[in-house]
């Protein structure tokens, strides 16, 4: 890491953890916390999608894993009385298990075929949530308790959310923390041997296989990590809204996850984060346009695509090709 990178990272961390809370408490726009928390969580899901893009697969199924993760957490908290903090990794792991089982056959597909299957998968998950008894059907699971206390050996690490004066801030910090950790992990993966292997898959799978890369294992691994991210994002979302329905994550959400990646730029680790911020925040800001909101939003999206078809971040590397 160069000094410039470190500086950039430092600025980013200070902005996320200090400047944003200070700015919000000064301006009094408490509603921004919810928006920014959503941005942070959605960008975790988008990070997962980005990883599948990195192995050359178009993933429009992240909504499915967000829904599964959300339901795992909700069911465990409500029916089995498990602490939320334990359900968070469990939700991720459950999603990984599901994704490995589904991924083994469908990751053999490529291009639009894979994209379409994952899109269908989102719909299957929604219908399963409607049909399965444990999910309580269309009524969903409601009044889920807020996350409780997390303590190790009597030492309180995270206090009970229900007793907090400002759970919004706490949720924001939790989401931001998770986001930073996910992107750090993602950055580490991309810049490791595993990342190089993944890039070889993106460029030419047959060639990679012929050199001796274990293609099948790698793509299932990447897909599993991707789904883990989706599950975590879904679980925290459920904790915030304290409810989950089969329609909490639908096809539109899956498509949005993909769009965030595209807009930010597929060649850059921080691409999905920026894309999520632009699209989600932009959508909320556009609510002033009332009935023209969707029209303006779609027009801006199309215009952005025409102007920067390789993602917004590609504006910054005109001179040297970083990838």
């Amino acid at each position: 890491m160069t000094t410039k990178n470190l500086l950039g990272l430092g600025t980013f961390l200070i902005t996320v953890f200090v400047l944003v809370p200070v700015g919000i408490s000064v301006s009094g726009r408490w509603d921004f916390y919810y928006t920014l928390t959503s941005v942070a969580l959605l960008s975790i899901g988008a990070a997962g999608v980005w990883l599948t893009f990195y192995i050359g697969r178009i993933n429009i199924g992240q909504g499915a894993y967000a829904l599964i993760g959300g339901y795992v957490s909700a069911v465990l908290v409500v029916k089995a009385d498990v602490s939320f903090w334990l359900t968070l990794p469990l939700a991720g792991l459950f999603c990984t298990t599901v994704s490995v089982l589904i991924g083994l056959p469908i990751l053999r597909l490529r291009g639009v075929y894979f994209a379409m299957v994952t899109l269908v998968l989102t719909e299957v998950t929604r219908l399963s949530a409607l049909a399965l008894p444990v999910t309580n059907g269309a009524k969903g699971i409601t009044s889920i308790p807020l996350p409780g206390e997390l303590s190790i050996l009597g030492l309180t690490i995270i206090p009970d959310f229900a007793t907090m004066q400002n759970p919004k801030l706490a949720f924001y910090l939790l989401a931001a923390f998770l986001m930073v950790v996910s992107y750090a992990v993602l950055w580490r993966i991309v810049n490791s041997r595993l990342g190089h292997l993944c890039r070889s898959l993106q460029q030419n799978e047959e060639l990679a296989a012929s050199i001796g890369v274990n293609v099948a294992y790698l793509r299932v691994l990447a897909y599993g990590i991707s789904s883990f991210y989706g599950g975590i994002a879904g679980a925290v979302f459920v904790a915030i809204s304290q409810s989950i329905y089969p329609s909490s994550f639908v096809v539109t959400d899956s498509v949005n996850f993909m769009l965030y990646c595209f807009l930010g730029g597929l060649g850059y680790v921080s691409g999905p984060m920026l894309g999520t911020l632009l699209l989600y925040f932009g959508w909320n800001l556009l609510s002033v346009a009332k009935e023209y909101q969707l029209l303006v939003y779609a027009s801006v999206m199309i215009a952005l695509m025409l102007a920067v078809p390789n993602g917004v971040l590609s504006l910054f590397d005109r001179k040297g090709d970083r990838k």
Partner: protein
Amino acid sequence: MEQILANGLYLGAQYALIALGLTLIFSLMNVLNFAHGQMYVFGGFVTYTVVAQFGLPFVVGLLLSGAILAVIGALIEKFLFRPVIRKSKREESTMLLAAGVAFFLDAVILLAFGEKQRGIPKIVDGVMNLNFRLIMPYDRIMVAVLAVAAIIGFILYMQYSKPGRAMRALAQDRVAAQLMGVDVDRYSMLGFAFGAMLAGVVGGLLVAITGVNLGMGGPTSIKAFMMIMIGGAGVISGAIAGGFILGMMESVGLSVLAAYGNITYLVIFASLLIFLAIRPQGLMGKPWG
């Protein structure tokens, strides 16, 4: 049983027509047209406006739906997809564009036609009744016949006309077609317009039976994706097969599985996943599209 089969054929004819448009666009441009369902709804609303508001005959509405959608399709290809395909590093970028177009069309439909369910009065009255074994309203039969006629017309056009031959050549091998003197830009535009036109025509047909509403766009796109996955993307025969198979499965499922609640689509999706695991390229598709 006859009733189920007849319903399946009726659904299948419409579905096949939707899938044909989608697969045509896909095979020519390698674009997965997310906006296909929206185009279909748009076509429905055009027919509704022409027939219910201006009081013109249904046929005029149908033709206008096709014509307006063809123009929209051509413009979208020329001013949106072509520049993006040229500039973008990865061809998947067109998916974002297609999704953007889908949102845009949704917004236009919302502003222009509102969010209410719209339908037009019955075109043909009466019900065909064969000994109560098979009951089918005449207007449904008419729609099915029109859809089949459109499918046959489409196949003949692709098979025997010069533009049809050019488009088939483009779908097979873009570079080779260009070397043989096919005007790639022109026929890509024509193909996109043609695909959009088919979507518009189906929308126009359906408005006469069940009506259309704003929310139908997305689910229709998903169904169309399923059809071309069953049949194989980019293959005309595959789209037709996929459409009829899905129509049949839906019809059979709705009657057989009705006792177990609303799980028809769950079963269809699950069997599709298993089918694709065994045969990834669909029934008639080329491996890896």
